[in-house]
């Protein structure tokens, strides 16, 4: 089994008639219930087997493959990721209800979210948020052109995409990397919120999934302990991952990281404009080709 197979089973999330698509997931979220059809699908898929090594009868072959499968779930609904993904424990005891992760009760003993794995899984919801921002930019017209023709929108989307690439490439065990990833993730969501404008706030229509994912990721992040560690920029990127990035992508990632850490930017204003342009074009191509924004660039339904 594979992420491709799971994606095929989930089908097109943007199809309103899909019982495991965003419309159905949002409806369940409104009722503060876990989505039953999607949960059943994960049971049919036998997600548990993905964590058992192949030599012991399971399907685990490597971390990259497992990440791709779990991101497929997190792209749709982080609640499913927590309830069924072995990334955390579901506690149905006397828990507290949060404004995100609705339908899950968070026990006083915080879920055992995996610190090393979690930032990487959150690339999933960020992928969907970015896709929502791009879809809206190409579908909507303002001031006599599409929103995607506005340079501010292009640059803002480019920067959210650079943040996604940076989180994807972070070395999870580097000191301070985890908290840095969360801050970048929230900032990327803020960028997309700016591009969506009022549509970021609607709980119905094609952009509604954005506000749900924004609530979910904020809740997930809040469950991790807050640690003060100043990251060392040289240790932040996984070398094998950074090597896979094209030059403009790598420059954009480095620029985002240095600015966030308060260091002098690596790009001049003119270079930055150029890099923003190239990253927007790449993100737009991935969106039009129905490919993931992460380093796999895997083709997905929709």
């Amino acid at each position, binding site marked *: 089994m594979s992420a491709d197979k799971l994606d095929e089973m989930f089908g097109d999330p943007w199809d309103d008639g899909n019982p495991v698509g965003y419309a159905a997931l949002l409806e369940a979220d409104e009722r503060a219930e876990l989505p039953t059809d999607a949960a059943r699908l994960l049971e049919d898929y036998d997600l548990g087997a993905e964590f058992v090594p192949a030599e012991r009868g399971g399907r685990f072959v490597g971390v990259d493959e497992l990440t791709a499968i779990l991101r497929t779930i997190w792209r749709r609904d982080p609640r499913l990721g927590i309830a069924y993904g072995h990334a955390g424990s579901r506690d149905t005891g006397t828990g*507290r*209800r*949060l*404004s*995100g992760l609705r339908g899950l009760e*968070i026990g006083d003993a*915080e879920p055992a979210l995996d610190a090393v794995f979690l930032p990487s899984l959150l690339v999933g919801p960020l992928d969907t948020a970015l896709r929502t921002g791009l879809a809206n930019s190409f579908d*909507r*017209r*303002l*001031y*006599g052109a599409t929103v995607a*023709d*506005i*340079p*501010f929108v*292009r*640059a*803002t989307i480019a920067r959210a995409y650079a943040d996604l690439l940076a989180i994807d490439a972070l070395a999870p065990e580097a000191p301070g990397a985890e908290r840095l990833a969360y801050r970048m993730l*929230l900032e990327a969501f*803020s960028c997309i*919120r*700016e591009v969506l*404008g*009022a549509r*970021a*706030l*609607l*709980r*119905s229509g094609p952009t509604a999934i954005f*506000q749900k994912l*924004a*609530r979910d990721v*904020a*809740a997930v992040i*809040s*469950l991790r302990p*807050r640690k*003060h560690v100043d990251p060392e920029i040289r240790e932040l990127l996984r070398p094998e991952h950074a090597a896979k990035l094209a030059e403009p992508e790598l420059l954009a990632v480095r620029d985002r990281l240095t*600015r966030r850490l*308060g*260091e*002098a*930017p690596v790009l001049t*204003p003119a270079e*930055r*404009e150029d890099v*923003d342009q190239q990253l927007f074009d790449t993100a737009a191509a991935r969106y039009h080709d129905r490919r993931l924004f992460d380093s796999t660039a895997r083709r997905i339904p929709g």
Partner: protein
Amino acid sequence: MNRVSAAPEAVLDAALGDRAQATAAGATTMTTWRWSADGDRAEAYPSEYSARLDAFGLHRYYAPPEWGGASDDHEVMLRLWRTVARRDLAATVAHGKTYLGTAPVWIAAQPEQAATVAAAVLSGAPVGCALSEPEHGADLVNGSVTATAHDGGFRLDGVKWPINNGTRSTHLTVLARTADASTARSHSMFLIERAALPPGSWRQLPKVHTHGLRTLDLSGIEFSGARIPASALLGAEGTGIEIALKSLQLTRTMCAAMSLGAAEHALRLVAEPGPRLDEPGAGHVVARCAALLAAAEAATLVGARSVHGLTGELSVTSAVVKSVAPALADRVIRELAELLGPQAWSMDGPGLGAFQKLARDHDVVSVFDGSTPVNRASLIGQFPRLARRLASGEHDDDGLAEAAAIGAPPRRLDRALLSLASRTGCSVLQGLADVAASDPVRADPGLARQAAGLHAAALQLSALMSQVRPAPRPPMAAYELAAAYELCFAGAACLHLWSARGSSRVGEPLWQDGLWVRAALYALSGPLAELLGEPRPAPSPDERRIFGRLSTVILAAAADSGPVTPFGTAL
């Protein structure tokens, strides 16, 4: 408080009830706090809350004194709104929307039109403003709702959506196209009375379900051949866009009250005694957030007073204030949420789940009445003059003094002075060199050094702004310069207020040795450096000392519900 007009805020605050009592375990009284939590969950319009605000007479502030209203001082109105907003942002927006709905009337109406609306407002009737359209948003010039001349009057066709007070309002100001071409003069403003619309010629569109401000009456109207009399026209035909933009100058300035309220609410929830404050670094986060809030407060108060003192500059001031106050409050809320952990998002957490509600509600503030990118674009359009004047430092001394004279009754607002482009730039920021050299600032060498640093950054900024070529679609770099301009404005506002008042309040902890103004300037310096493409300055021992002192003062103030900002009030 040595301030005559502090009284209305205190009266209003008392009318809204005691928080500790209302949210204590086992509390059963139906209070404003309970209304907020329950109403948000049920998405129910805050009727009881609004009635409480009407009973205080808040609606009287939405009509000018010449028409029998109480709106003679926008500083007072700002203070009243923030007093409500620090308890329930949504209830404030729901009630305050009549101010936006009627703003076009006070700008452009004939006496009999104004008298009709004033009577409605003073009786407590909600008034809405129908500018937005489903496919156009802030793009007013391309709006497609039409008003066609017909039988001596007009007929309206098309959809206005979303409208705050869209269902409950008795009157609506409506922007509609009266000419085919899409130009600045192709639209006109109308005042319509819902009860007078012929039945069947209009349709109510359902409530919009939103992420924040869930309790609002946010809906829309579809007109299909709705006949309105010629007397519905506000101002001359073709002046609708101009009236709308001038109205927005007033409302955008006043919107900042929502951000002040939300950020103060968040700060109080976090700074009240509790184990979260024992975490390492917690005091520093609280202090930095309090400093950012103080900067937002200064920018906002100076902005509200500029409505009277620097009316002709509001095209700049309103765009700055509408962007910078939500941006600073967003930063405060984000940092405090990180400190609170899961408590921040708990539906049953401190104050009946108040933090997650205020965070969702505040997400909307940077969007409504013109989003941050829209406001920054309008600032960028004025860059050439702003850059020149920032470099030369010329400014309106009298107007600036009035804008900084907190608590003093201002001159009457002359709406005829509203202008779509400020001819004198922005006196608040252009007066930075002078205030940095003023005696009250120079008296403290540390503050003088910070003021000189801010002035140097502002000059660097003016050089960068002058290189931006005017364009219909400006580059991203120009938006970042606009953001830097806003932060410089906030810093300058802090210095003006300190210079005007510092010595008179020296006995108060926040004012001792310039504590708040020094902390605010430090808190602004990091984000400003980042926007100017420079490394963030490492915190000096002086900065750490200032934040340490501020943290002690804020935690003590929060513990006994005292003021947590330099111009704030006890809760």
